[in-house]
């Protein structure tokens, strides 16, 4: 590899949540990132969702801020409405040809939407799964990024009404053709997302034939408040609200005949989520989920499932329907309730099919030469779900195997870390920093305010009398300049702003137009370009909050616009320049925990070019791995351990401390001072918690009796040939897990572990009688479902029990008594060996670590991440990260993904020697502070603390590195000592007074 020619940029193929997470991590680390997306906007499937399980966060609320971040990041370039044509070259220097499809809309588009309003062509809207409509010239959804319209040339009838409507903007150009652009990138991250299996391939379910049979995603659009029905659930044939809805799981998944032998992993949870959402709006609708195994295995999911059963009264029926047919206006579902051995038929109004996830990887295989597995997903390499068969090409998300948002985000960050590691030597070479002229000083000056009032074409002007507003605003004191413009955000207006600032010696500027949420950064930067501090810019929203929503009240809207701008003027008078803070960053990380996740994380961070201190409290590295002999799906833990340890030793930057704990910690993000128990002291910028879990020592099912073992102990037995051929081995699942009174969560790995161990027993002791007693078989991981099938072939008997019906019992002679719910009969099995799939529990060191680092533990005892879906590897406290079983139980593959992912999160923090802190933060006016400490009690980030200034004298202090500017402290402060900069009390009082003043 010719280092001189390595490109410091990365191509991310796919703009869904995986692509977004990967590109933000890469860009923050200093790599130029191109996101190429086939549709006109980034967002992907997650943007179509209403809420995400199990927390029921609104998907768009959590995504939209990231989308805006991406749009303004100096290191990210979005190439929408484009596809990859050709890829040549090698790691470090890929030559990619990209085809930009002819959208016929050029860069002058500002997303105003006037074109779409007049377009006469209606087309089924893909975003709404073809249920709603869009126009031939369209933007896929309101929060689209970039907000650029495109023409669907297939349906466009060339009436040119859109060109008329966009008068004077020159944004629609029918001469635009497909364009090929060339990119040179150092690495490629393929995150194309997924497709869904067409359920009409199982005609007995009636999809495509009956109007009220929908797929999961179609139903998601139906219940989404911003969907085509506004969130109203009704039948498409008679527009009535359904009374009963059936949800059918595993449609196409776990189905060898249909071609998808694997589990699609997310459907159980999304079906439960959808039922809960339906019940929230319409408690009277009867919801029934038909399932085989309810796979609620992730963090928070079993708890969610229990709530769905108990609080919402959702019915769960174990038995997959064989047929759905129409009878009159109803859909009849034919199924067998397997727990009652009763064939049944039940009428429903709607049926929702959880259809299988299918890979969408043809392009990857064709163009990138990436090896796919037999199901079409990307074949993982070296037991790593992020590596592909082609060097320099990484994969994340569902392209490799079905997974939910939490696991997708972890793999995406992991892909970013691996790509960044390849290009560590050229980090920052293509990064852009925005440069601005020096700021002029406004201290002591009288306010001189300039105002632009935007017509936005007719978007504002059609309802609000812009000239009347302009003439009124001109009369306000301190307004030195006021003019109306056609499009404030267009090039020409943006060039005029600095000119006007100079000419009229303005020291405050207001634009009255659309919404600050999208356009404030643009105008702030425009002002910065004129030497004005960006916080002296004020935005007045007279479009989204006024003209667009008061069409029928033009007079009132005009008065409202006047008041809105007058209030902005009142605020602008009081605005002060704000500067972001700068703090130094120690470019070193500490990883706490030397198990397999800790080792991988340390290795990955070191590969990014940073020093790592790895501490482990035992005598050797390896953690729980040392107790294993055979790992799911088919790995040798010893080999893995050796490999990891040699990687650690080979990577010079990692300093290992064994038999060591952290004794003292002080400081904050970027600047931690650490004291270790072996006497060493060090400074680090980031800390990763990679402490591991334990296996619970059961106190039920006869543990303690002879011949009763846990699964880990069984591995030991098999390795030491401790069984005899011909023995009866009975495994009991969910021992200590899924127990509402003590440990509600699912331990996630035990089903796969048990089956793998059972197969090992079968292999070594061919004449054994093996039983697995289970509640749900949760073999969701890649290869696990196939292994379950294999288990059946290997005569392993599965008996389903239900603790609400009858709990299994192991008596003192190791006779296992169980009630088989599927055959409805009691059974007794004399076991030679009883194996308990004991719960995965928080490590015994967790509580101590939690106290030492002031990091929260969740109710389940595992560490609590910042956001379960979108920030699973961060803590809310800046500078702290977590990965592996510290976050929740998971298998090796998921642990590796998280370990790689966390290294990207750390990399973002350590990449720069100095980090900028938020400018609009809270500050303490010490002379007014009485040290009451109320602020410290409401700050979620620990940014507000009390410091001692003298004997018995305490003052509040805000750490600018940690403050996020929410202002909760300022509202709590009784003396007004705490000032929320840029949103302080004076400014808000001035706004209130101004709005309410009598004109």
């Amino acid at each position, binding site marked *: 590899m010719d280092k001189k020619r390595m490109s410091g940029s990365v191509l991310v193929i796919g703009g869904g949540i995986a692509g977004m997470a990967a590109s933000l991590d890469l860009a923050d680390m200093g790599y130029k990132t191109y996101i190429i997306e086939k549709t006109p906007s980034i967002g992907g499937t997650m943007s179509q969702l*209403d809420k995400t399980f199990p*927390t*029921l*966060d*609104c*998907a*768009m*609320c959590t995504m*939209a*801020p990231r989308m805006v971040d991406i749009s303004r990041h100096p290191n990210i370039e979005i190439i929408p409405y484009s596809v990859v044509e050709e890829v040549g070259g090698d790691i470090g220097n890929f030559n990619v040809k990209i085809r930009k499809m002819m959208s016929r809309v050029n860069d002058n588009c500002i997303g105003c*939407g006037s074109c779409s309003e007049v377009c006469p062509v209606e087309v089924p809207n893909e975003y709404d799964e073809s249920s709603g409509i869009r126009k031939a010239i369209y933007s896929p959804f*309101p*929060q689209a990024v970039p907000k650029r319209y495109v023409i669907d040339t297939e349906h466009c009838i060339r009436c040119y009404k859109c060109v008329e409507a966009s008068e004077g903007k020159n944004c629609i150009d029918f001469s635009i053709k497909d364009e090929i652009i060339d990119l040179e990138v150092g690495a490629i991250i393929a995150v194309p997302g997924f497709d869904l299996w067409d359920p009409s391939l199982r005609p007995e379910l009636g999809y495509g034939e009956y109007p009220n049979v929908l797929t999961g995603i179609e139903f998601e659009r139906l219940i*989404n*408040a*911003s969907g085509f029905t*506004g*969130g109203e659930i009704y039948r498409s044939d008679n527009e009535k609200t359904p009374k009963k809805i059936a949800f059918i799981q595993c449609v196409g998944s776990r189905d060898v005949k249909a071609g998808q032998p694997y589990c699609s992993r997310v459907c159980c949870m999304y079906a439960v989520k959808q039922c809960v959402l339906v019940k929230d709006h319409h408690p009277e609708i009867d919801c029934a989920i038909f399932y085989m195994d309810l796979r609620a295995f992730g963090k928070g999911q079993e708890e969610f499932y229990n709530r769905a059963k108990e609080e919402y009264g959702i019915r769960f029926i174990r038995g997959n329907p064989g047929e759905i047919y129409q009878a009159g206006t109803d859909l009849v579902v034919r199924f067998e309730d397997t727990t009652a051995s009763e064939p049944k038929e039940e009428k429903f109004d709607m049926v929702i099919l959880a259809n299988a996830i299918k890979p969408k990887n043809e392009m990857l295989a064709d163009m990138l030469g990436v090896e796919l597995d037999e199901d079409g997903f990307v074949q993982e390499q070296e037991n790593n779900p992020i590596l592909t068969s082609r060097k320099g090409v990484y994969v994340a998300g569902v392209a490799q195997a079905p997974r939910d948002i939490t696991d997708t985000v972890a793999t995406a960050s992991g892909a970013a870390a691996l790509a960044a590691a390849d290009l560590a030597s050229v980090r920052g070479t293509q990064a852009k920093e925005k440069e601005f002229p020096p700021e002029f000083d406004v201290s002591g000056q009288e306010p001189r305010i300039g105002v632009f009032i935007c017509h936005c074409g007719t978007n504002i002007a059609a309802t609000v009398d812009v000239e009347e507003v302009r003439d009124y605003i001109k009369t306000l004191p301190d307004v030195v300049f006021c003019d109306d413009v056609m499009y404030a955000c267009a090039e020409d207006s943006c060039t005029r702003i600095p000119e006007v600032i100079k000419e009229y010696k303005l020291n405050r500027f207001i634009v009255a137009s659309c*919404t*600050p*949420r999208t356009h404030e950064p643009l105008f702030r930067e425009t002002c910065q370009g004129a030497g004005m501090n960006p916080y002296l810019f004020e935005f007045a*929203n007279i*479009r*989204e*909050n*006024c003209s*667009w*929503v*008061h*069409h*029928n*009240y033009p007079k*009132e*809207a005009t008065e*409202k616009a006047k*008041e*809105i701008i007058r*209030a902005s003027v009142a605020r602008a008078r009081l605005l002060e320049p704000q500067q972001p803070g700068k703090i130094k960053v120690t470019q070193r990380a500490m990883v706490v925990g030397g198990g397999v996740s800790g080792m991988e994380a340390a290795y990955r961070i070191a590969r990014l070019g940073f020093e790592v201190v790895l501490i482990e409290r035992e005598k050797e590295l390896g953690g729980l791995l040392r107790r294993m002999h055979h790992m799911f799906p088919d790995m040798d833990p010893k080999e893995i351990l050796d490999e990891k340890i040699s990687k650690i030793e080979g990577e010079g930057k990692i300093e290992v401390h064994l038999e060591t704990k952290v004794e003292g910690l002080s400081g904050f993000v970027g600047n931690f001072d650490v004291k270790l128990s072996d006497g060493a002291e060090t400074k680090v910028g980031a800390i990763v918690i990679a402490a591991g879990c334990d296996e619970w020592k059961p106190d039920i099912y006869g543990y303690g009796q002879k011949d009763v073992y846990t699964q880990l102990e069984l591995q030991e037995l098999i390795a030491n040939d401790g069984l005899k051929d011909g023995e009866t081995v009975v495994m009991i699942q969910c021992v200590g897990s899924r127990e509402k009174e003590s440990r509600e969560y699912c331990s996630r790995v035990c089903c796969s572990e048990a089956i793998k161990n059972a197969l090992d027993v079968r292999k070594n002791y061919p004449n054994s009688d093996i039983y697995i007693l289970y509640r749900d078989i949760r073999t969701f991981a890649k290869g696990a479902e196939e292994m379950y099938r294999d288990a059946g072939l290997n005569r392993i008997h599965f008996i389903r029990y239900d603790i609400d019906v009858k709990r299994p019992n192991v008596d003192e002679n190791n006779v296992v008594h169980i009630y088989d719910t599927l055959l409805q009969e009691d059974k007794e099995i004399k076991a030679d060996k009883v194996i308990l799939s004991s719960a995965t529990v928080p490590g015994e060191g967790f509580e101590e670590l939690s106290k030492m680092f002031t990091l929260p533990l969740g109710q389940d005892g595992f560490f609590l991440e910042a956001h379960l879906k979108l920030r699973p590897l961060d803590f*809310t406290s800046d500078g702290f990260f977590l990965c592996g079983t510290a976050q929740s139980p998971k298998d090796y593959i998921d642990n590796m993904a998280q370990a790689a992912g966390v290294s990207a999160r750390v990399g973002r923090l350590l990449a720069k020697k100095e980090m900028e802190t938020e400018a609009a933060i809270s500050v303490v006016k010490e002379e007014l502070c009485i040290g009451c400490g109320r602020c410290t009690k*409401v700050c*979620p980030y620990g940014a507000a603390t009390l410091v001692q200034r003298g004997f018995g004298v305490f003052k509040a202090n805000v750490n600018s590195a940690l403050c*996020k*500017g*929410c*202002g*909760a402290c*300022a*509202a709590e402060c009784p003396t007004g000592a705490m000032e*929320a900069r840029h*949103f302080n*009390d004076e400014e*808000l*009082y001035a*706004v*209130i*007074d101004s*709005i*309410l*003043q*009598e004109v």
Partner: protein
Amino acid sequence: MWAEEREENFEPKIIAFICNWCTYAAADLAGVSRIQYLPNVRIIRVMCSGRVDPSFIVRAFLEGADGVLVSGCWPGDCHYVSGNEEAKRRMDFLEKILPMAGINPKRFKLQWVSASEGKAWAESVDSMVEQVKTAYIEDKKKLEGLKNIPAATA
């Protein structure tokens, strides 16, 4: 006094403190989707509903606001983790105090609107306007009633 200064069939002016990440996004969405609602509301954008000091609300009423609305993220969804919980705590006691200062409780509302609920935002404005108008009628009636009992008026 509010009820005396306003004329019959007046248009109430409502001040709304709304948080940037959820309700303001919903208001924008309502705009983008062209969902129409009454022009009575004046939005004051704050970063978090936790920024809203009870003194802002009392100030607004003092300066002549007919109604005040505070709107933030649903519990558990706060962009700044717990700001909306602080808002709830403060608004709960403020709600009880306001009638003691002669402010009809129907003139004040704390609500949660998430970023995807454009329609819910629009509807909440319309319903707040109705609510304030009802408060006006109630207060007006109460004043009329008091005029007829000589000893009780102040």
